[in-house]
């Protein structure tokens, strides 16, 4: 026990001595949380629309006012020439163009059929498909409206049998669709993970690189003393970071905190042991800080991309979903969101806790197995 105390004292002295690193460790993640939470809104809104009217009729004017009334589109330009639409898309002046063909109205009256064309800049595929979906549904409503208002003159008895399915919808848990409530818990996990893995892995490797690890190896310090001594300070820093982050989330972004915070901290503590174990494992596999950093970075990028932070896991192909099962980051992101936003309780999370303990045992077991007191 005394040995452990001395190691901890040494570690804390070293941490507090390096003022630059300490500042980066504490303030950088919080600053990131503040800034990034504003940045990660990938909801698609304000699709820039250009209206090309080659008909110039009453009907095409009606379509224009329908498009104008839609909250999804910002009308950037109008024209009567198709070539203008192509130009605008090339210069990235609009995302989507709605084109009304010549004699649109005349054809409708004569043949009962006409066409509207949608052109989209599809480099951003999601935006293009969403934009053309919105435009299509506006055209669909517009066509119903034309039928109701002008179709009676053409064919009076068709109208009585239009069937309509009314759609009512409600958003639960986050009725204002505040995306920050969703992203902040995820980003917080990301930052705590980054700090944990990097600091733990680089710390031991630095001792290796500077040669001081040999001095520790010749002392009677036991393996587990050394590992606990190296882990515990970062565990405390990680938990503090998490606490600060939550506080910031509450004060600045007003994210809901419905569930039990104590349980959330318990999970965060468990998670940190797993993730610090990963840092330790990396440090046993590498010899220089540069290597440690790159290997950590490699795993973290994969963990983060496959963690469900930016894109939902159930949209991934099955093999990728299988990989995410081995990703501790995924579970912490899930738990953080479930507890904060939905108030999920211990019974909902028992599986997550069990898995995290499994991670701890496997990762730390490997790290202890790999750590040698000899070189």
């Amino acid at each position: 026990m005394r040995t452990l105390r001395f190691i901890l004292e040494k570690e804390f002295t070293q941490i507090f001595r390096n003022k630059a690193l300490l500042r980066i460790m504490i303030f950088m993640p919080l600053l990131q949380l503040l800034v990034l939470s504003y940045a990660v809104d990938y909801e698609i809104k304000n699709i820039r629309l250009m209206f090309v009217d080659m008909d110039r009729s009453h009907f095409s004017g009606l379509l224009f006012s329908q498009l104008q009334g839609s909250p999804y589109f910002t009308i950037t330009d109008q024209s009567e020439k198709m070539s203008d639409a192509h130009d605008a898309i090339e210069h990235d002046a609009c995302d989507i163009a709605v084109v009304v063909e010549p004699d649109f109205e005349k054809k409708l009256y004569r043949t009962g059929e006409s066409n509207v064309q949608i052109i989209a800049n599809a480099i951003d595929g999601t935006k293009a498909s969403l934009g053309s979906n919105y435009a299509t549904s506006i055209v669909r409503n517009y066509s119903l409206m034309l039928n109701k208002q002008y179709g009676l003159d053409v064919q009076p008895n068709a109208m009585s049998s239009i069937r309509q399915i009314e759609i009512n919808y409600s958003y639960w848990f986050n009725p204002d669709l505040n995306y920050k409530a969703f992203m902040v818990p995820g980003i917080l996990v990301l930052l705590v993970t980054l700090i944990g893995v990097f600091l733990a892995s680089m710390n031991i490797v630095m001792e290796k690189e500077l040669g001081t690890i040999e001095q520790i190896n010749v002392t009677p310090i036991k393996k587990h003393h050394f590992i606990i001594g190296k882990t515990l300070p970062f565990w405390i820093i990680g938990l503090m970071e998490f606490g600060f982050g939550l506080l910031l989330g509450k004060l600045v972004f007003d994210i809901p905190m419905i569930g039990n915070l104590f349980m959330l901290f318990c999970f965060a503590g468990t998670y940190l042991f797993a993730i610090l174990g990963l840092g330790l494992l990396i440090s046993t596999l590498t010899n220089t800080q540069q290597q440690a950093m790159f290997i950590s970075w490699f795993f973290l990028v994969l963990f983060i991309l496959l963690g469900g932070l930016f894109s939902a896991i159930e949209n991934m192909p099955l093999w990728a979903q299988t990989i995410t099962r081995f990703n501790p980051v995924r579970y912490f992101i899930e738990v953080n969101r479930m507890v904060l936003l939905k108030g999920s309780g211990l019974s909902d999370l028992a599986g997550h806790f069990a898995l995290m303990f499994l991670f701890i045992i496997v990762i730390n077991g490997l790290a202890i197995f790999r750590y040698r007191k000899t070189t």
Partner: protein
Amino acid sequence: MHRLIAFVRKEIFHILRDWRTLIILIGMPIIQILVFGFAITNEIKNASIAILDNAQDHHSAALINKVLSSGYFRLETYLDSPVEIEGVFRKGKVKEVIVFENNFGAKIEKENKAAVQLILDAADPNSATMILNYTQAIIADYQASQNKLANLPFTIGVTSQMFYNQELKGVYMFVPGLISIILMLVTAMMTSISITKEKELGTMEILLATPMKPGIIIIGKVLPYLLLAFTNAIIVLLLGYFVFGVPVNGSLPLLLGEMLLFILTVLSLGIMISTITNSQQVALMISLMGLMLPTMLLSGFLFPIENMPLPLQIVSNIVPAKWFIIIIKTIMLKGLGFGFIWKESLILFGFMLFFLSISIKKFTPRIE
């Protein structure tokens, strides 16, 4: 000149000797593009839903069948009563619950009007709106198929044309972004770390004591990383082309030239970082937290810049990758020439001069 060559050789030895780092440097771009191309998608696929069917008639059955056979949704469970709804959401198993009212089908037949209620788990607002959109479209489709029988006087057809990316592949967005992230990682991060490493280990003193000019030392340090970065970028381009079919529509020499410009810009950034700090850890933290995350998040690679609040939109202008991504998209995907991107190129060039001048000002060939 031969001094420079000798120095570059030393540096290349350093890189080749450390095979762990090298494997990661070469392997990471490959794995990243595969993960991005195959796994990361914001399209709705197999979203799990629950259904509360109070009607149980042939209209509700037909609509359920239409929803489930669309490929977007997967039925998790049928519910028996409204009180179960909250429970399935809380377990995190279900993203949407579809509720059919009593006598849904009878109402369609008799009153020409019936209602469906959609309840969404909006904890993830983006998924929720997407799922809502898809469901609404399917229901509207069903409604339209019901109205075919009515034989309306006007039908308006809609044809759509997708420019540059007909199959709406997400990987078209990722390849340009990945190239810039990788160039950033290899050049800015590696150079700043390898220079501070010499400082930390004290070998910088030895280098400075040699008759080599400081300028030569710096050039010798960055040249190998420039080559490495270039190789990486080309690997990504090739993978994008052969695995995902992302084309290079514009001029290849122009694309390579612009890549070189960006590499030089971030190299000067790396040099600048190494003149500010003396420790590898600090250099790493600055590159990682100060460069990588903003590059990923503020460059328009993952999240649209126009959605950000104004201050962030302004900040995004000082992220060099933002301009580079515009440049590559214009050349690769739109196939346009230099006339469309000279402004962005000029901005990158300006960044480079700025970083270099700061570095030269801060660089001291002496050790305190």
